[in-house]
């Protein structure tokens, strides 16, 4: 799998160093080193692990799960606001966590808890050069919304994981930002100087990128595999396994949100979506134009709830 991942990176990402100079295995090692050097490694609050345990236990009931979630009042109120927003399509109908679970299912509710918790975890507020956490999250939330809208346009019965995978797709950048800020500053400068995406600068400075680093972090946090894979492959848009539509949707959502200048992901370039990812989605022309007005409206609303 590692070999395959390297190959696809070299073929699809033209700014990467040529083959032989970089491989996926080394990138994972480098990412591993960065995570190991963090003295105060961010751990997920216990509520998420109790939640994961409850969800894995076939005997647990909606009541058990909603009791765990309701312990965290801040998360509860955010989640209820999100599920009642037009993005989820049940405006004003869901007033309790247990009702939210019945309507959206355990998986998506636990995803929303996770999203809210992780956003609280990275607390640094001051900016590095032109990289401001609030704009980073703006970009991330917009990608979450775009990804979910693309999922809807694909006509999938459920769009579980789409919002969360989109919101968390760039989490590796926050690891650099919070725990390797000197190097990340150099990466930001390098990207600007060479007019290349921040990902290229990460390869130059860190020998790995935010996709590898974010996926490794997600793996250490024991997040669902579909999310780990979406973090890992969102830049290439295709993955050797798991949920190809989810990954391709995050990829296209990212390209669309960069085009629309919502938030700031570390550079201002518009990225060309990979044809391989577009082939997986097979979207009709005109769909994105239809999505954008709702995307902009949801963006205003969801950033108000989460930021």
């Amino acid at each position, binding site marked *: 799998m590692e070999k395959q991942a390297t190959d696809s990176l070299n073929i699809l990402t033209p700014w990467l160093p040529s083959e032989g100079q970089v491989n996926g295995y080394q990138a994972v090692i480098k990412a591993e080193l960065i995570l190991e050097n963090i003295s105060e490694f961010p751990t997920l609050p216990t509520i998420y692990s109790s939640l994961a345990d409850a969800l894995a236990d076939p005997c647990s009931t909606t009541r058990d799960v909603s009791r765990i979630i309701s312990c965290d009042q801040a998360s509860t109120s955010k989640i209820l606001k999100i599920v009642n927003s037009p993005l989820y399509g049940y405006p004003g109908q869901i007033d309790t966590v247990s009702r939210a679970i019945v309507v959206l299912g355990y998986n998506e509710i636990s995803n929303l808890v996770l999203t809210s918790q992780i956003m609280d975890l990275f607390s640094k507020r001051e900016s590095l050069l032109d990289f401001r956490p609030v704009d980073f999250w703006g970009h991330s939330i917009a990608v979450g919304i775009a990804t979910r809208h693309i999922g809807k346009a694909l006509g999938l019965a459920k769009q579980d994981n789409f919002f969360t995978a989109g919101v968390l797709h760039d989490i590796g950048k926050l690891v650099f930002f919070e725990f390797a800020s000197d190097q990340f500053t150099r990466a930001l400068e390098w990207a600007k100087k060479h*007019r290349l995406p921040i990902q290229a600068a990460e390869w130059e400075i860190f020998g790995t990128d935010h996709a590898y680093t974010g996926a490794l972090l997600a793996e250490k946090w024991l997040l669902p595999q579909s999310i780990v894979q979406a973090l890992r492959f969102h830049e290439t848009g295709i993955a050797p396994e798991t949920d190809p539509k989810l990954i391709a949707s995050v990829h296209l959502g990212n390209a669309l949100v960069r085009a629309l200048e919502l938030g700031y992901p570390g550079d*201002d370039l518009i990225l060309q979506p990979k044809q391989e990812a577009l082939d997986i989605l097979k979207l009709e022309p005109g769909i994105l*134009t239809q999505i954008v007005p709702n995307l902009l409206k949801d963006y205003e609303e969801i950033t108000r709830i989460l930021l």
Partner: protein
Amino acid sequence: MAVTVTIEQLKPGMVLAEPIFNRFNQVLLNKGVAITDRHLNVLSTWGIPRVIIEGGEREETPLELDNELKERGLTRLKKRLLWTPKSLLEEEIIHLAFVQACQHTGK
């Protein structure tokens, strides 16, 4: 909610909210039809000036861009765009980026 667009603004994939009639009051295209390139030809042959399409939830008057705004939007866009589109979907992304860039520079 339905919105009225001119034939120039009508793009493949948009869905009609009302039927389109020709000048003999015959239905050319029914409501609910998703527009294709072929339809665009038919409509321009019949000289249909504007149609009503499904337009998401908010009603919007299409942004009228004056030339100066377009110019500034284009400058802003060009700095961030280092590739040329190879498909309709990529062109669509660039068009959306252009509209947004015009709005940003207009603020």
